[in-house]
């Protein structure tokens, strides 16, 4: 079920009413309702995939219980390994089977040995990468004794499948989300109202910014050979806004929806395009995944404790794995590698934690240096996005070589004024609200209600009058 669909528009109020008015007296009933609603939400795509998520949840629940019953290190390690093998095994099969098959076939052909292997027609279950990482965080944390294993099967299953963030995150830690299923939720007016605002902003980002930018990004990327460098720059910028509007929009809707049910999800985006260097960008972009890799991969690999070279090696590993997590294609791996490469000078100069505050804090405008830093960071990430969006590496390289050619100075073949106008307005609003959790946070504002309402009506009107053609959220494929 898509957030920007009629089905969800009916589903959400129905679940909300049942949750707060029918099953509100018992915590267990509320959790059970969330579980059922989550399975309906997920099964709307394809009910057969429910078996996967139920199996994964069962395995990790039982492993959690088993971990609580043994202190033997070997047994505990075995249990953890089993969980990792099952979860990564599913992910590997559904997402990477054909990729490895083709890569091996290509490698053998390259060395003069022709082998034939048949591709399988595998349909990737929606959101498998997200819930796999979420449930893995549980077993790892239980293994490390950071978290008490749960004996509440409904709470655990609801945690794994919690519908607002099930298919595209934020990837929640068991330590943050699971305990929220044990505590009686109280309805909080401010939290719910702010949740609705965040949902509205998420819809604006998705429908007006991402879907409109997607239209032109798709045209330009699909026929990139026909366009000049200047148009290709536009295409890359459109894609940068498409993926940001799409993914952060989804996160906003997920976080906002959770708040309506009394849950707090972690922040996933913190105005990343205002970052002054690539390290800051990665502290602000897809935070739940970056911190997941930090906690469960980078630190176990030794983190930065083993000196500069160890730090560099580990950074490259997590960026490349992160790229591979996004999809079974070499383009994602190169995208990850490129980002690691951007990181390198900052690490060598030990400047990867310089910009940890909010840019131009307590000022309306950034200074020239900050503007330049923001532009350079945005340009670097946009270049990397070309690999992310391209069909294959050759396509990306040809695309970039055309950008850095004389045709860059030609007039673009088309210049969609309306989309560019919306992007500019969007950036301005985000800039003005960059010290908040999200751009529509008006918690302590003195703005009168009618002005705020007028602004919300305007956003709704823009969504319905100028929204792009409905497209699936990009991150569903991951």
């Amino acid at each position: 079920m898509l957030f920007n669909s009629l089905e969800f528009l009916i589903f959400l109020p129905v679940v909300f009413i049942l949750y707060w008015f029918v099953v509100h007296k018992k915590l267990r009933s509320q959790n059970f309702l969330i579980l059922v609603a989550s399975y309906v939400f997920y099964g709307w795509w394809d009910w057969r995939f429910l078996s996967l998520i139920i199996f994964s949840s069962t395995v990790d629940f039982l492993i959690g219980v088993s971990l609580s019953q043994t202190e033997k290190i070997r047994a505990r390690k075995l249990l953890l390994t089993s969980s990792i093998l099952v979860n990564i095994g599913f992910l590997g099969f559904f997402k990477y089977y054909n990729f490895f098959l083709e890569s091996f076939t290509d490698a053998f052909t390259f060395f003069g040995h022709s082998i034939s292997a048949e591709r399988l027609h595998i349909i990737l279950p929606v959101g498998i990468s997200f819930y796999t990482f979420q449930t893995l965080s549980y077993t790892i944390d239980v293994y490390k004794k950071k978290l008490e294993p749960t004996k509440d099967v409904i709470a655990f299953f609801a945690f794994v499948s919690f519908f607002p963030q099930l298919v595209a995150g934020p990837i929640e830690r068991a330590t943050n989300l699971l305990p929220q299923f044990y505590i009686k939720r109280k309805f909080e007016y401010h939290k719910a109202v702010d949740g609705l605002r965040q949902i509205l902003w998420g819809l604006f980002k998705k429908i007006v910014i991402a879907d409109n930018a997607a239209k032109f990004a798709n045209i330009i990327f699909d026929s990139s050979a026909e366009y000049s460098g200047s148009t290709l720059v536009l295409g890359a910028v459109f894609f940068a806004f498409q993926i940001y509007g799409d993914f952060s929009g989804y996160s906003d809707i997920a976080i906002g929806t959770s708040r309506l049910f009394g849950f707090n999800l972690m922040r996933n985006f913190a105005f990343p395009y205002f970052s002054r260097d690539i390290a800051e960008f990665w502290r602000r972009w897809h935070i739940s995944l970056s911190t997941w890799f930090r906690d469960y991969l980078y630190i176990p690999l030794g983190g930065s404790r083993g000196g500069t070279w160890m730090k560099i090696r580990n950074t490259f590993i997590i960026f490349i794995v992160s790229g591979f997590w996004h999809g079974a294609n070499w383009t994602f791996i190169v995208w990850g590698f490129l980002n690691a490469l951007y990181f390198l000078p900052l690490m060598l100069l030990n400047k990867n934690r310089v910009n940890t505050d909010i840019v131009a804090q307590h000022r309306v405008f950034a200074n020239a240096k900050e503007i330049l830093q923001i532009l350079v960071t945005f340009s670097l990430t946009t270049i990397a996005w070309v690999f992310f969006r391209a069909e294959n590496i050759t396509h990306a390289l040809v695309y970039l070589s055309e950008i850095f050619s004389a045709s860059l100075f030609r007039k673009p073949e088309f210049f969609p004024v309306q989309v560019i106008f919306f992007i500019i307005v969007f950036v301005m609003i985000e800039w003005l609200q960059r010290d908040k959790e999200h751009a529509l946070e008006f918690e302590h504002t003195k703005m009168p209600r009618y002005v705020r309402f007028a602004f919300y009506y305007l956003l709704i009107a823009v969504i319905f009058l100028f929204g792009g053609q409905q497209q699936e959220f990009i991150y569903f494929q991951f």
Partner: protein
Amino acid sequence: MKRFLKTLLIFIIPLAMVTLVFEIYLRTMNTEYKQKITGLVANYDDIEVLALGNSHAYNGVDPRQFDLETYNMAAGNQSLYFDKRITLKHIDSLKNLRYVLISFDQHSLYFSSQGIRDTWLYYDYDIKYKDKTEFWNDVSHFWLGYTPRITVSIVKDKILERFNDAPSHSEEVIKGFMPHYGSVASSFTPAGIKKKANYFNREVKNSDEREENLADLDDFITQLKKKDITPILFTLPMHTDIYPHLIEEYVAQNKKDAQYLITQHNIIYWDFSDAGTDTSLFYNNDHLNQKGAAFFSKKMNTQLKKVLH
């Protein structure tokens, strides 16, 4: 919770009022479809020739140029799928119907759904597209059937029409026909021509419906003949500059398909596709204007008279 529901209610009231106003407006407005179906029903006993097709026929077949009583049931983007269902729904009431003119364009066999127009046609003609459910579109014409974007565009056009001294098209349909006035110069530039050709190329390239639609048309022709009604295929011209940009393979396939229908059913085909050289006959690069519609409708009438004799 009470405070939340109260705030939500206050917020929703203006939206509900806007919805109500537009729902009433859209459900009562005299759409082109409504005008066409009303005209068809009112002339059940008189109609002898029924013209079908998409906007090329809607703007291109002028019933006033025919000697026999003719009615135009073509509409913007109308597919063969709907041509057939509209005709068969009313055929038993059309007592004097003798000829059905079926528009056979470059892309006719390559689509059956008209997108959002399926719902508009359902509203006014009560014909559904395949097994598409229209339940929610029945619930709200404003939010779903027409969508706010199209509603606003309809209202905007209506307002602008009042201030426009030289409208680009007729305000009301004439025997189902909607004439366009004048020409849009920008449409005939090389870029405009290529854009339109690309549109048709995309339509045919991205479609896998040809065989299904051909079989459906085959069946339509058979059913008409069983009822002693003569089906005639026709193709109105697009501007001559468009044709070189069309994918040759599909142009050839279309000719083959037309030939198949002609020989299979022994029917007539009026092909005017190579007659689109005079720009003054066109409103834009693929639609005739009033002058062009009169010109080609007269030609069709002459051809029809030959059939009569």
